[in-house]
Structures are given as structure tokens and as C-alpha cells.
């Protein structure tokens, strides 16, 4: 049985089902409120939700009960310093760290929070908050956000972040210091003479290959890239894709040469009438379309950066993506074919599978 945690504009939806057939909605939470992200920490089973209440502000919630069976608790400390000029706008992502009790949350305005007690209390990462380059960071259409947090398996001190629009950030000392990882990324939305020193890089998503952690894949605002040196430099691997624009990236955890992307047109940021997932199994040298079972006409879907998820690996890899149209599609065979999971949900912001 597969569980999907689906963050939508009108609440958290939990779906369950067997890969290959329609899933059932088993419960809802935060009804009517925007849920930007939800995940289950596999180490503890604890559920997390990032809720951006238009009334009461952004907040991380957690529960150890099964969805619908108990109470959600508000986490403490997910806030900017009091008395300053900025306020937290939203939490974009929550990720398990590589040490007991360590959990991360990323949000707008370009902030990272850390918890060492399984998400009950949190602290702002000061080094990133006070980074001297911050005045040069730029907002994209979604805000200024830490939206991807990528730990290094087995090494709790090493972490990569994606910030829109401030590029890739790396730490090897648990967040005490941060360095850029932007070499090779080309921002063609900037004048040529500005690109070499640009910090305002609009990275859309970042994923690390667990079997080869120095390898990462990146979907950019016009470009798909691969790094083989832990994110310090990047190689353009978009050749062969119909469009180099898109938002999410997903990997097969068993194959460090794999990646799945959902290209959309640069002009309107939706699929170009047909929905196609593209797969590489040679680290981006070639790409193959995977569209069997996906709509191939009159389909202009928007799939946001957190709305594509994987569970399992290898031949048992299951893939799921949700669109702002409220539809969810899934694959039980690593993308070879696709089935309808759910329809008519509110606009989908995130999908996590487990």
C-alpha cells in the first residue's frame, strides 16, 4: 500500500492505494488552508505539514498519530528574529537530516531552520540568514525561498540547498559556513556580461543520487544540469529535451545515472498540450519520453517543484506527480506507463510518497 501526502491550496489530502489503480482519499487536514508541503519522517513515522494560514501566518505542524486520528501540534521557533524588518512568509520544504533528531525546514525569505528534537523546536540558521551576499538575492515569481534541502547520506555535516533566486548553497560544517555551488549554470535571463558573477540564479529543484552522493541533478529556470563534484560545478544535460524549462526533478535511488523531469514551455510554464515525463539512465547523455497513459492532447498542466515524488527503487520504483489542475498521475513501473491516481483535488503544491 502506498501513501501519498498531497499539499494543496485547500488543505492536506492523504491518499492510499495500490500502485496501478486509483487511490482513495483517506483523510484531510488543515481543511481550507494552504498546505505547501507535507512529509513523513521515515525514521520516526512523524508527520509534518507546512501550512501557510492567510490569517495566522506560516507554521510547521507535526503529529505522531495517523492522519485523521489525532491532534496536530504547532512546532515552536519557526520564525525570524523579532523586531526586525522581515517576517517569515512561508515554509516551502521539510527534510530529514542525517543525525538522530535532526530535521530541516526551508522557507521564504531564503531561510533555513534546524531542529534537533525531531521537529518540535526549531532554530534559524544564522550563518545563512546573515550571509553578506543576501542583499543580492532576488525573488522569483514564487518568492525568495529555500525550497530544496538535500542531505548527504551518512554525513550530517554536509548539505546542499537550492534557493530561488540565489542559486545552490553548500555546507560541509553543518551550516556554520556556506559557499556557492553555481559554476557552469547559465542564466540566459541575464545579460551576458552579468552572468559570470551572478548570484540571483533561479534554481527550481535539486536532488542528490543516494548511491553516489557527489552527484546531483538540478532543474533550472531554463536548463537541466548535473554535478559530479557535490554541487560545486554543473554540466548542461538539457540536450535532447523538448524544453529545458520545468520545475521538479526526481531520481531512482538505486541508479545514480537516472533522473526524471517534466518539461514545460518557457513562455507559459505549462506542458505544451501533451504531458510527457522524460527519463535519463545515462546521467543526461540521452533522454527518453515516458508518456504511455498520460494525456496527449489538450493538456496544459503545471507541475510545481515539490509535486513530483518517488518511492521504492529499481524495478519497483513508483512515481507520482500532481498538477495545479488537481490531478495526480502515478507509475508503478518506473515511468514506463502511467495511471490516474486522483482527480478534482484543489491546486496541488506538493506530493510525497511512501
Amino acid at each position, binding site marked *: 500500500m502506498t501513501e501519498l501526502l498531497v499539499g494543496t491550496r485547500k488543505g492536506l489530502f492523504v491518499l492510499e492505494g495500490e500502485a496501478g489503480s486509483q487511490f482513495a482519499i483517506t483523510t484531510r487536514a488543515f481543511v481550507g488552508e494552504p498546505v505547501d508541503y507535507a512529509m513523513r519522517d521515515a525514521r520516526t513515522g512523524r508527520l509534518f505539514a507546512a501550512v501557510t494560514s*492567510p490569517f495566522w501566518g506560516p507554521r510547521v505542524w507535526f503529529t505522531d498519530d495517523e492522519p485523521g486520528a489525532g491532534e496536530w501540534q504547532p512546532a515552536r521557533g519557526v520564525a525570524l528574529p523579532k523586531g526586525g524588518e522581515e517576517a517569515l512568509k512561508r515554509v516551502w520544504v521539510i527534510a530529514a537530516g542525517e543525525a538522530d533528531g535532526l530535521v530541516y525546514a526551508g522557507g521564504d525569505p531564503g531561510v533555513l531552520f534546524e531542529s534537533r528534537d525531531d521537529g518540535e523546536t526549531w532554530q534559524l540558521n544564522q550563518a545563512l540568514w546573515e550571509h553578506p551576499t543576501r542583499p543580492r538575492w532576488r525573488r522569483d515569481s514564487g518568492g525568495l525561498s529555500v525550497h530544496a534541502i538535500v542531505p548527504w547520506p551518512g554525513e550530517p555535516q554536509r548539505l546542499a540547498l537550492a534557493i530561488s533566486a540565489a542559486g545552490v548553497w553548500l555546507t560541509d560544517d553543518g551550516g556554520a559556513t556556506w559557499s556557492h555551488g553555481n559554476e557552469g549554470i547559465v542564466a540566459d535571463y541575464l545579460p551576458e556580461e552579468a552572468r559570470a558573477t551572478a548570484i540571483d540564479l533561479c534554481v527550481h529543484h535539486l536532488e542528490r543520487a543516494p548511491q553516489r552522493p557527489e552527484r546531483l541533478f538540478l532543474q533550472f529556470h531554463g536548463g537541466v544540469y548535473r554535478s559530479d563534484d557535490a554541487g560545486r560545478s554543473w554540466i548542461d544535460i538539457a540536450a535532447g529535451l523538448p524544453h529545458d524549462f520545468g520545475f521538479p526533478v526526481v531520481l531512482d535511488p538505486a541508479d545514480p545515472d537516472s533522473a526524471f523531469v517534466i518539461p514545460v514551455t518557457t513562455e507559459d510554464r505549462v506542458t505544451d498540450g501533451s504531458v510527457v515525463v522524460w527519463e535519463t539512465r545515462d546521467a543526461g547523455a540521452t533522454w527518453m519520453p515516458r508518456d504511455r497513459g498520460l494525456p496527449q492532447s489538450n493538456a496544459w498542466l503545471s507541475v510545481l517543484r515539490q509535486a513530483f515524488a518517488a518511492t521504492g527503487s529499481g524495478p519497483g520504483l513508483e512515481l507520482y506527480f500532481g498538477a495545479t489542475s488537481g490531478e495526480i498521475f502515478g507509475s508503478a513501473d518506473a515511468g514506463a506507463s502511467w495511471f490516474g491516481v486522483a482527480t478534482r483535488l484543489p491546486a496541488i503544491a506538493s506530493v510525497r510518497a511512501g
Partner: protein
Amino acid sequence: MAMVRLRGQLEKLAGSSQLSIEGGTVTELLQALEEEHPGLEGWFLDERGVLRQHINVFVNGEPVEPDATVEEKDRIEILPAISGG
């Protein structure tokens, strides 16, 4: 002391549906409310100390601005605004 009436999640976090709070203005009263009841921290005022955009505050049934004066025995209600969707 003014009387603040809380409903729903706010009541649960405060542990009471009615709280007596002192404050010269609405903003000062909300600051005191959050300080005296840490579970409510950040629910009314953001980190800048600004009233959240889609909250309405009523004093004795009348909508007021954050800098409105609060008198002894005023009844305060804090409600979601329809502008929040």
C-alpha cells in the same frame, strides 16, 4: 484590564476562551497576549510586530485599527478577515 475572547484553535492554544489582558493600544494588548501565553506567539503579530494582514480586531463589536486605544473593561475579539479567503 480588557477582556479578550478567543475561539477555536486560539482558545485551545491559550487554554481559555476568555483572557484578561492589559494594553494601551490594540497592538500593545496583542503583544502582551502573546508574551503571557507563549502558545499564541506569532499568531496575531508577525516578527516585525505588525498585525497580520488578514486579521480583524473588534473592540466592543466595532472594527478598529491596530493603533486604537483599549480601555478598561473593553471586550476584544480577534477574527479572521474575509479578505483572507
